[in-house]
């Protein structure tokens, strides 16, 4: 009997991973990003969220390698005098927290509803899938923007900004759960007719036990593939919402708000305020997408189109 670790080491999964240089490189970069985000409070040159540290006299300093640059601010400063590098670390951290949180929420809602719809069938299925279809007919980004707009008008900008992180998580979480629901429902419908389910029913396990303990683990592969795609999508949604002004406030910016703030400055020459956070975001989303692509190919080449 091999341990799980041994099994994993010998698995095709690891083998395929080691052979694909792009996947390995993406994984390494992703891990670096994650470490940077987690350790942001300790490794950043300064805390950009703390007003004490910011001196407006430091604003718009170019990156270190340019004339007028300073080694104190490696990538320069933004229009408020904050160190770009620190703000990018913190911004990444915020984006990841919201991204993961939102997708966890999406997955939770989607899996519970999709599992129920798929396994219980009949009326439950019809109603739940109707709701999913209807929400699906509206683009998820529109849902997110509309819900955010309504919240902002209802709560007022001040309260909204204070509650930005949980609000954004909920907004993005609510906007895209149907895709989880649909995927797991399809998978469950396939599993439903397999013998182990029949066996469990005969033994007399209650419905919910069968659903969650027996069927769910076998349907997880399909969810794993979407998970990565959805995280990339959630991060981008958060950036979009922040860019529109429905996201993180100026005092605690995420990458999207940074890009927003920096836009006007490309005309006056301080291009780094918007370009660096942008590139940072792009690379982050890119590695997630590359890994997601690879994961999809390895787990099942025909599972997910496009």
């Amino acid at each position, binding site marked *: 009997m091999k341990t799980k670790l041994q099994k994993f080491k010998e698995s095709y999964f690891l083998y395929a991973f080691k052979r694909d240089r792009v996947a390995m490189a993406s994984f390494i970069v992703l891990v670096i990003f994650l470490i940077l985000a987690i350790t942001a409070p300790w490794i950043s040159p300064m805390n950009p969220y703390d007003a004490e540290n910011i001196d407006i006299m430091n604003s718009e300093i170019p990156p270190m390698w340019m004339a007028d640059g300073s080694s104190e601010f490696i990538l320069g400063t933004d229009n408020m005098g904050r160190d770009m590098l620190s703000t990018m670390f913190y911004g990444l951290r915020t984006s990841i927290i919201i991204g993961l949180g939102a997708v966890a929420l999406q997955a939770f809602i989607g899996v519970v509803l999709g599992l129920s719809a798929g396994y219980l069938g009949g009326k439950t299925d019809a109603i739940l899938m109707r709701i999913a279809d209807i929400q699906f007919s509206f683009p998820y980004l529109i849902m997110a923007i509309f819900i955010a707009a309504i919240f902002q008008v209802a709560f007022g900008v001040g309260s909204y900004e204070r509650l930005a992180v949980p609000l954004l998580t909920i907004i993005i979480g609510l906007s895209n759960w149907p895709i989880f629901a649909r995927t797991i429902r399809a998978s469950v419908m396939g599993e439903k007719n397999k013998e182990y389910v029949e066996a469990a029913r005969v033994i007399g396990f209650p419905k919910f036990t069968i659903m969650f303990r027996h069927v769910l683990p076998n349907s997880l592969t399909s969810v794993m593939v979407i998970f990565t795609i959805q995280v990339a999508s959630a991060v981008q949604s958060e950036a*979009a919402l922040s*860019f529109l002004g429905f996201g993180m406030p100026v005092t605690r910016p995420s990458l999207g708000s940074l890009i927003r703030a920096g836009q006007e400055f490309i005309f006056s020459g301080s291009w780094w305020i918007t370009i660096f956070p942008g590139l940072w975001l792009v690379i982050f989303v890119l590695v997630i997408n590359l890994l997601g692509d690879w994961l999809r190919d390895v787990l099942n080449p025909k599972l997910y189109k496009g």
Partner: protein
Amino acid sequence: MAVSKFGKIENHMFAFIIRRIIQALLVMMIISLVGFAIKNKIGDPVRDLVGERVTPGERAEIADNMGLNDPFLIQYVRFVKHAVKGDLGRSFLYNKPALEVIIKHAPATIELLIGSALIIILVSLPLGVYSALKPRSLLSRFTMSFSTLGVSMPVFFTAILLIYLFAVNLQVLPSYGRGETVDLFGNGYWNTGFLTIDGLKHLILPCISLSSIMLPLFIRLIRSEMMEVLETEYIKYAWAKGLSPARVWLIHAFKNTLLPVVTVFGVQMGLTFAFTILTELVFQWQGMGFMFLEAVQRADTSLLVAYLVVVGSVFVLVNTIVDILYGFINPTVRIAGTK
């Protein structure tokens, strides 16, 4: 025999259409309910009507006259009645009926959508087909690598980069606004940018930005669909009949590829609409998205709600029509009721 078969299909179709319409109406009702609830709880219709310079006493009187103290449901019904007639309230910001403001801002957004749709069609079709036919060629591999990059770049960042490159550095294209527009119908309702060089110049960067995130998706989709089609028995049979490669690829394979692609195109246009809001912000483009953001910022509830109701209804309408049309083409949908 053929008659009863036809009759059965007709019945299925009829039931299907009725079901879809009922569903559409229900969703519209929910949208209008949500919209009205917002207006009711957050909005200030008195202010919308008479501005801010009224005494509290006058406000109370006006509020009563407007029926603002009536029960929720009655007000809701009133709201729906007005909405159906085209009255969605008055925009405080523009001092005009909300619907009129929306309609006047719509053409700008529609032109963005048209421009980017054109770019998507003209670029993704040839590239997608080519990478399906010659997957190992340099161009194909290049295209596929870039496609992952393309979907990873936020629309607004692409826009900013394009502005930085073409407007700030190279200075060949404008960085904001619509430029010179021509009044198409002479009544101020549709100012188009397509008829002047300046207008077209202003359209270029926004449309490219808008299409940038959809292009990779379509190229990939067309390529994978076409590659699947190329493996089918009927394509093999087409070869066995001795048809020329041009015919097999560009007529047989292509037509079969187009059908699923067109369905996706429709859905993606919805998402592209969401992206227009972002693009309009970057380029200060006076379309519906820009108007929406202003309404939120200045808390013009009437305009905001009107926008939500209009956009929501348009989505429901388009989806319902597409579903019904699809039901005509694909018989299996009618019986099951859902996709």
